């Protein structure tokens, strides 16, 4: 598995003394969409927050693109090519759409390409282009998700850590976002580690699925296999 983009081994992490994650392992190949599934409190969000350094790792290894990731400062993550779109969308609601998007590219040296990426995002999400000067709090839930995603894309990441993009969105909007992820993967080779409660829509676009229960990996398999595994679905995924 030397070609893996992200390799997580034996990851144990949490808040304070009691770990939330126990010995978690997973792999994301370049251009692959991996869904992290599980019930509330399974540790899905904590997993993403640990990968990006917002939660301290107590044990285990995270290797990104051949180099150790642990110890990297949170603010240096984007420079390594990782964009984390947090749960609840993470739009800075006091800033305008345009300011939010520009924020996504401020760390980049390549100003020209930053601007180009910004224009591409406006092309990708026409509703955002119509609301450039709107403050974040004036947007609908779907538009905020577009903005958070678009802002991540301005940094041209290689790996997207995406936390519950469907949260609070209409099924139609969720469908659009999932289709967009698949499309981005086809066009740009963007790999995605997707945390979702909406198991059906996540497995519909994912290549692989990782099922978490109480902070442990209880299943890792092709998405198509997980979709058809009735026992697993009943036990951990609730449908």
């Amino acid at each position: 598995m030397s070609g893996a983009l992200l390799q997580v081994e034996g990851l144990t992490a949490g808040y304070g003394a009691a770990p939330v994650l126990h010995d978690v392992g997973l792999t994301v190949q370049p251009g692959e969409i991996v869904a992290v599934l599980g019930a509330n409190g399974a540790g899905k969000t904590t997993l993403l927050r640990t990968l990006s350094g917002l939660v301290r790792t107590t044990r285990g290894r995270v290797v990104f693109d051949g180099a150790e990731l642990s110890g990297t400062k949170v603010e240096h993550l984007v420079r390594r090519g990782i964009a984390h779109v947090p749960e609840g969308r993470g739009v800075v609601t006091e800033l305008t759409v345009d300011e939010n998007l520009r924020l996504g590219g401020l760390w980049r040296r390549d100003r020209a390409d930053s601007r180009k990426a910004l224009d591409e995002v406006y092309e990708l999400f026409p509703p955002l282009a119509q609301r450039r000067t709107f403050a974040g709090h004036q947007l609908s839930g779907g538009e905020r998700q577009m903005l958070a995603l678009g802002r991540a894309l301005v940094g041209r990441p290689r790996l997207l850590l995406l936390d519950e993009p469907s949260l609070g969105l209409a099924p139609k909007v969720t469908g659009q976002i999932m289709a967009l992820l698949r499309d981005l993967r086809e066009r740009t080779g963007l790999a995605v580690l997707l945390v979702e409660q909406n198991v059906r829509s996540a497995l519909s676009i994912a290549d692989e699925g990782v099922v978490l229960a109480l902070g442990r990996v209880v299943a890792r398999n092709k998405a198509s296999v997980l979709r058809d595994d009735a026992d697993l679905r009943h036990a951990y995924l609730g449908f």
Partner: protein
Amino acid sequence: MDRFVYLTFDGLSRGLVYAAFALALVLIWRAARIVNFAQGAMAVAAVYVAYSVTNATGSYWLGFVVALLAGLVLGVTVERVVMRFVDHSSPLNGVVVALGLVLIIQGTLGIIYGNEYLPVETPFSRDAFEVGGIAMLSRYDLFVFAAVGTVVVLLSLLFTRTAIGLRMRAAAFAPDVSRLLGVSVGGMLTLGWALAAAVGSLAGMLVVPTELGVHPTAMDVVFVSAFTAAVVGGLDSPIGAVIGGLVVGLLLSYVSGYIDVTVAPMAILTLLVVVLLGKPGGLFSSSKARVA
């Protein structure tokens, strides 16, 4: 009528100083959610530095520039050495630490310079021009207008037009998200303190010569007025700080001029109570609820 004109200009001139000082409070509040009660003492420290430099070199302007730089350095120091290590789980912690800083700074200044008023010169005359027999405003008032006006314009350009300003606002509103986007939140916080302390020092430099002179507690009363201005305007709003400062300055000037100087503090308190009763977030607070 001529008295009204004079009091109005006097109020605006004082109000601009309060505005600058309130702006400094707002800068730190927005960045760190701390009301910096040490702002006054820090500003006085910068004025003392200017006093020493001006006395040694004979140049007011050298002292002026050094005071602003001293403010920057003091702001960085207070944030990096003290405030960064304060546990912010309760908003009172920062307040208590800031009050402790006031005692330390004022005590140290008293030891070095003595607890007496030292005379400070102004770079321009404080005699008011007369236009058609009516005393209007002095050269020094014009200097105050220009200095505070420049700071307000520069700050608004910084925050609305530059990448650093965008980073500072983002870091203040959403620290975790900003870090994920590559913003050095700690660096922005330090920068916020530095700017605020420099603006506070400017306010100190402008107001101290118009009062009794420089003294370790010279900014205490100014702090009360400026704090009122910041709260009246809404602690989150730079525009509110400026307008709040002008309102407080005018109110003080009219009440002192038409009623009595001793009633002025009561007028300030009344204004504070009325605004807090009518609009608890301040006149220019955004309507959206914010979690501190």
